[in-house]
């Protein structure tokens, strides 16, 4: 008997307590929505979602500042899912520049490892996070696309030209070095001392199209 009344009492009491909580929210949602409503209106397009405040370090889609990229391929090596492909070529200045930087959005899992290893900070994860589209015809959305951040290539003639320039520069260097050595030897001979052996040529001939840090 006591159990009966206790159950009824507990049931009514906790029921009223719960109704009070939800009732307070019901009231506030209608009186001062700003305090209680925590979702934002969403109309299937990005227009309303523009108001979303993103943190400084937000990890959105990858973006590349190609001018700062030295094509060291560290991001390509650290990527756990092989989503990045970097391709490099030499410029006239003998430097390396990125000629192709492809990101497979289908594979990228936004872990940010590549941005951490980037030595120049050229590769960053931007604030762009919107991936959905309404292109149901091809069934792909932005995540299914391949994003090309590269710069394109030299033509074959340009490549040959650059290569020739490099070769000639190397030749000139070698010649200069040889001349310098000869001169030294002559001076030494002029000083009537046993001729010192000419210094070995210091110029190195690297293979043209292997990027550094491989």
């Amino acid at each position, binding site marked *: 008997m006591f159990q009966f009344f206790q159950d009824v009492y507990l049931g009514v009491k906790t029921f009223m307590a719960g109704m009070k909580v939800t009732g307070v929210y019901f009231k506030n949602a209608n009186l001062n929505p700003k305090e209680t409503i925590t979702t934002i209106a969403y109309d299937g397009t990005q227009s309303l979602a523009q108001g979303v405040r993103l943190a400084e*370090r937000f990890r959105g889609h990858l973006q590349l500042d190609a001018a700062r990229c030295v094509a060291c391929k560290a991001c390509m090596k650290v990527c756990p899912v092989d989503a990045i492909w970097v391709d490099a070529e030499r410029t006239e200045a003998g430097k390396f520049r990125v000629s192709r930087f492809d990101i497979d959005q289908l594979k990228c899992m936004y872990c940010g490892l590549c941005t951490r290893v980037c030595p120049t900070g050229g590769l960053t994860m931007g604030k762009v996070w919107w991936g959905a589209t309404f292109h149901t015809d091809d069934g792909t959305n932005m995540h299914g696309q391949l994003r090309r951040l590269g710069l394109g290539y030299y033509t074959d003639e340009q490549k040959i030209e650059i290569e020739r320039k490099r070769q000639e520069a190397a030749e000139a260097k070698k010649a200069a070095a040889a001349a310098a050595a000869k001169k030294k030897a002559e001076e030494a001979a002029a000083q009537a001392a046993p001729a010192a052996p000419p210094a070995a040529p210091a110029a190195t001939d690297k293979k043209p199209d292997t990027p550094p840090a491989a």
Partner: protein
Amino acid sequence: MTAGTREEQRLAHTEEMVLSMGPHHPSTHGVLRLEVTSDGEVVASARPDVGYLHRGIEKIGEFLDYRQFMPYTDRVDYLCAMNSNHAYALAVEKLAGIKPPLRAELLRVLVDELNRISSHLICIGALAMDMGAYTPFLHGICHRELVNDLFEEVCGARLTYNYVTIGGVAYDIPQGFIAKCDEFAVYMQPKMSEFNQLITANSIFEQRLCHVGVISPEQAINWGLVGPNLRGSGVCWDIRKHEPYSVYDKLQFEVPVGDGGDPKGSNPRGVLGDSYDRYLVRVKEINESVKIVKQVCALLRENDKLPADSPDRQYQAKVPARLKVKRGEVYCRCENPRGETGYYIVSDGTEKPLRIKIRTGSFSAVNCFEDVTRGLLIGDVVAVIGSFDIVLPEVDR
């Protein structure tokens, strides 16, 4: 039974029916499939069938180096990615003999506890939703969003963080982050009291969970249950307390343990180890985590006072880019929201591990599922799933 004619017996004869509960069932928390053999409403046996989410993460790990595997630990348990990262980092550091600096440890513990709060919020909210009350779940989501905002500020991601690195953390915290954590801690406690008023104290909810899925301490230990499921059965075992692995030995917090059947306890009408105990343990752990967050914030404030170049002030230890660990193997475990997560790593001296075995809390929970749900009603099966807080990617990996 009275012996009638064969015809009568044939008519009186009833069959058990086989229900395929899941993998797409609203309340199997993912892609768990249960072969429920039920006699009407009463469950004769519910055989779990897992593997729908098997991605071979352990196998993938054998092809990646130690640093590259970290993002995959996010995917092992997406509700507490920070804790998963931490567990893996601990294992590798133990194997490679790396000592992360103090500040890194503090930051790890901070994000761990924040993530524990958010994970438990999801768990108790989902349990309430399985019981038919939708509002608590969405209130829990609202509180969790604040945690996600904090994580977004600190590491830029909202779900798969990849924040903890081997030998430290990826970034230092931004300006004013500690103040926000303190504010969140202050915000959370009254919210939890309101939450309890809304659902925990509700007598329908209590009736639904009391005396359902009872697990005695011996059974719990034998089945290898861990974390809140183990503590809900009355076994006081928390790795943060009994095998302190980070700066947890510097912090004061209690280990909530199920007290079903104790007339003065929080679950007077139940028995020890029922679903309501497991639920209550999680509710209490949220408050404990809030305490820890406050203490860690205080410690971080002290740490900020140190000179910028002191070793304790750094957030990342010196770790070579291509980490080579010595030949050996290690089993390292760490307390996650879903119980201890153990990483068994075998290294053969190269950059890549020979074998990574991830032992998770949900795995053992699913293991004992068939025995626990025998003889319950179908509604209770849902309650038991919810009270075990199963996350399927953890089971299937």
